[in-house]
């Protein structure tokens, strides 16, 4: 899309001096308006060929560096300009009506854009004026004094000696699980096992290792049960003396019970 030969008597003069950077411009309309206004061109009689050439020339330098969306906006305008130029070259009706001038829509947009640039100037002025009024809180309150930096006056040895004084963490507190259910049958088999090995068994031995009332109750019930079966005899010399359990006439330990019991049974 190189600038083609100047049409309708427009000359390429003026192309060279207009080396402007696209960054300055908000968009294609901004650039176009700059080209027109800076050359004192009558906006109602835009030399499309010359302006198109200048427009495209400006694009060529910066287009590759532009984000694609922005580039597209400029290219769209370039295409519009080329289209207008082509339409101007077509044979036209005898009376050139403004409505049929291919440039009319572009001129309308340019003027509208320029109109809003004036509004922008008004807003800029208002913004600057507003910026000269200050409300409460503009100046910060009493300054907070900054904390003075403190030198670290500690050697590694100091640090370690302090660290050594920190006590070891206390051992975790043991938590006994709640006692399991004690069955009379367990005590029965324990009692049978002990009697099989010993001539006599102290009643205490049946529950003291566990130290709970439930074990004592279960042991007593077991002893009474076995006594009822005449598997053992209970002897007590006098009230509150030790209770001894002795094998009865029918003491026979069931073979299965021995393996499941715990190790407390050892002497």
């Amino acid at each position, binding site marked *: 899309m190189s600038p083609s030969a100047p049409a309708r008597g427009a000359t390429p003069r003026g192309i060279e001096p207009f080396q402007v950077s696209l960054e300055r411009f908000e968009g294609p309309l901004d650039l176009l308006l700059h080209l027109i206004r800076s050359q004192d061109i009558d906006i109602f009689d835009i030399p499309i060929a010359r302006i198109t050439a200048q427009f495209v020339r400006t694009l060529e330098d910066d287009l590759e560096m532009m984000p694609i969306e922005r580039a597209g906006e400029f290219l769209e305008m370039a295409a519009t300009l080329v289209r207008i130029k082509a339409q101007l070259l077509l044979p036209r009706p005898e009376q050139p009506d403004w409505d049929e001038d291919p440039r009319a829509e572009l001129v309308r*947009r340019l003027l509208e854009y320029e109109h809003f*640039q004036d509004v922008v100037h008004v807003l800029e002025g208002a913004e600057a004026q507003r910026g000269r009024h200050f*409300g409460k809180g503009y100046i910060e309150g009493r300054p907070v004094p900054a904390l003075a930096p403190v030198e670290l006056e500690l050697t590694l040895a100091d640090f370690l000696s302090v660290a050594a004084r920190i006590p070891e963490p206390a051992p975790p507190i043991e938590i006994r699980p709640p006692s399991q259910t004690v069955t009379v049958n367990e005590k029965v088999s324990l009692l049978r096992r002990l009697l099989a090995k010993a001539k006599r068994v102290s009643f205490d031995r049946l529950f003291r290792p566990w130290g709970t009332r439930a074990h004592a109750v279960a042991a007593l019930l077991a002893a009474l049960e076995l006594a009822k079966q005449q598997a053992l005899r209970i002897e007590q010399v006098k009230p509150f003396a030790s209770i001894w359990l002795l094998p009865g006439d029918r003491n026979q330990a069931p073979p299965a019970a021995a393996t499941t019991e715990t190790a407390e049974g050892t002497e």
Partner: protein
Amino acid sequence: MKVEQIVEATLFASQTPLTADEVARADENLVAESVVEAIQVLRDVYEASERAFQIYQLGDGYQILTRPEYAPYLERFDSVPRAPHLSPAALETLAIIAYRNPIGRIEIEEVRGVSASSVLRTLLDWELVEVVGRGEGLGRPLLYGVTRMFLEHFGLKDLSDLPAPDELPVVLGELQQAMEAEVEEVEPEAEEDGATESAPREEAEGEGH
């Protein structure tokens, strides 16, 4: 306690503009009208006594602000960040919205010749514009208008503080006149065509549906 002093205390204590209704909450006996009257009295008092501040109307709110001639002194205290200046793109977009209120994104882009979606998002974030409705066109596009914050940012009472469109240097009517002149020059009977062409914007917006 005089009404003026209650109003003065309320405005003095506020860091943002307060509407007359908001000020009136300070006392059961206050109504918006008496607040407005009191503000006028206070303004005259400040003026007469050459106070360094004045009560300014920003949008529908009132705020005590320093007079502009003291700005050079206050600007030496740069501890507080200043309100940012808006970018050219933001100003352009705001200009269009302020004058064509309410207006859709497509119409804004037609005027600017560039995309407006990201700048619109920024302006919405800053609460300088807001969605004021939906258009009649395809997909019922969102319509935007400027906000109270816009008026506060630019120090305007309302949009009529901005110059009327025909007071601006480039008047859109210029195009209309030029067109009509050209049409008359060539073919006087084509005048009504020129007249309809001269108001393309309203036509375009109305045709959307």
